[in-house]
């Protein structure tokens, strides 16, 4: 009997997981269907852009600066062994534009803006604001979810670009100003190695994908949270964990598609 019960438990979990994925897909579809309205009332998106994008600026800039500075230091130590310190610019720029910019910005975005979104919507649900909206014939997906979704999708590539730009500046500060790598070769080798379409645009595409996935997970977890204090806190945790894992796994898949054989 114990064996059957274990198998039943496994089956229950799988069915639940599949069911949740189905609900999330339907949620995504509905968000896209009702986005038209939110573009007509653009100030709703602007308000969300402020709380997701502008408020994330400081953490993105500070983190980007330090990541770039560490890359500069570590890269210099390694490249010095092969006598190619002049390639420091290439290393810092490619590392940031291709990988670290989109991934780190998305991780920070998930823990700063994503968790806030989940908590906000979860609490709206717990205090029955969402049911009240439905009573007034206001579609909560069009009024609450869609503007937040588009704000996340718009602000993610911008934040990633700022992260990369500030990070390269940080690498420049450590490499050129502090250690004394030749400034000319730092920039010229970087420009020779970084391709606009191959490297920069692929980074932008990555951050668009991450923005979509992170915002969607945050909104869905908030909307799906049990309307209790415990439920909201659990949903917030799940948002950060699930979206961080999703970012890292998707990054591997995207990198394998984009940069293999390049």
């Amino acid at each position, binding site marked *: 009997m114990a064996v059957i019960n274990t198998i039943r438990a496994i089956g229950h979990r799988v069915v639940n997981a599949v069911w949740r994925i189905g609900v999330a897909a339907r949620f995504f579809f509905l968000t896209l269907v009702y986005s038209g309205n939110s573009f007509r009332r653009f*100030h709703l998106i*602007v*308000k969300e*852009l*402020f709380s997701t*994008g*502008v408020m994330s*600026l400081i953490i993105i800039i500070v983190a980007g600066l330090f990541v770039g500075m560490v890359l500069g230091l570590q890269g210099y130590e390694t490249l010095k062994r092969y006598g190619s310190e002049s390639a420091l610019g290439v290393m810092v*720029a490619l590392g940031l*534009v291709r990988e670290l910019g989109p991934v780190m910005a998305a991780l920070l975005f998930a823990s700063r803006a994503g968790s806030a979104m989940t908590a906000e919507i979860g609490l709206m649900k717990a205090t029955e604001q969402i049911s009240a909206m439905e009573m007034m014939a206001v579609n909560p997906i069009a009024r609450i979810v869609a503007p937040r979704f588009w704000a996340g999708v*718009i*602000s993610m*590539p*911008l*934040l990633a*670009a*700022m992260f*990369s*730009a*500030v990070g*390269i500046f940080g690498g420049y500060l450590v490499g050129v100003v502090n250690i004394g790598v030749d400034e000319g070769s730092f*920039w010229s080798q*970087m*420009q*020779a190695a*970084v*391709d*606009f379409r191959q*490297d*920069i645009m692929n980074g*932008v595409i990555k951050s668009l994908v991450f923005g979509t996935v992170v915002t969607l997970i945050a909104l869905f977890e908030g909307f799906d949270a049990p309307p209790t204090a415990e439920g909201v806190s659990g949903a917030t945790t799940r948002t950060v964990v699930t979206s961080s894992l999703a970012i890292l796994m998707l990054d591997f898949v995207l990198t394998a598609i984009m940069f293999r054989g390049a």
Partner: protein
Amino acid sequence: MERTTLDLWVGMFVVAGVAALVMLAMKVGNLGTYNVSDTYKVHAYFSNIGGLKPKASIRSAGVLVGRVTEISLDTKRYEANVVMSLDKRYQFPKDTFANILTSGLLGEQYIGLMPGGDTEMLKNGDQVKQTQSAMVLEDLISKFMYSKAAEPAK
């Protein structure tokens, strides 16, 4: 928060993000350094291109004058056909010599152009007739070994 202040902050955010992207494209990437429009294309056959890749640089007297755009194998001659796009500002004589060279000991391979003395210049679609292939390390070593073996023993 007031609507106008909100708009101002969001506007600043978007402008800063776009500025970062433009800065990445111009200062970090290669969008600001070469223009695709004013180039002309010439091609050359090499019996061996070694590790030459598309987008490798083409230099004359050390100055960057163009990029390799296409590499293919010509099955009539069984030689590599390399298409090069050169900057319109730099004109080369018809009897220019194209060499595949290596920057540094283990660096990237590039094409070096040595201008000849012809009065006619290369035009779009012309062929660079005189070429020298890449040095392949194995060939060099085997040549050295054969010449050593051919020497009479002392």
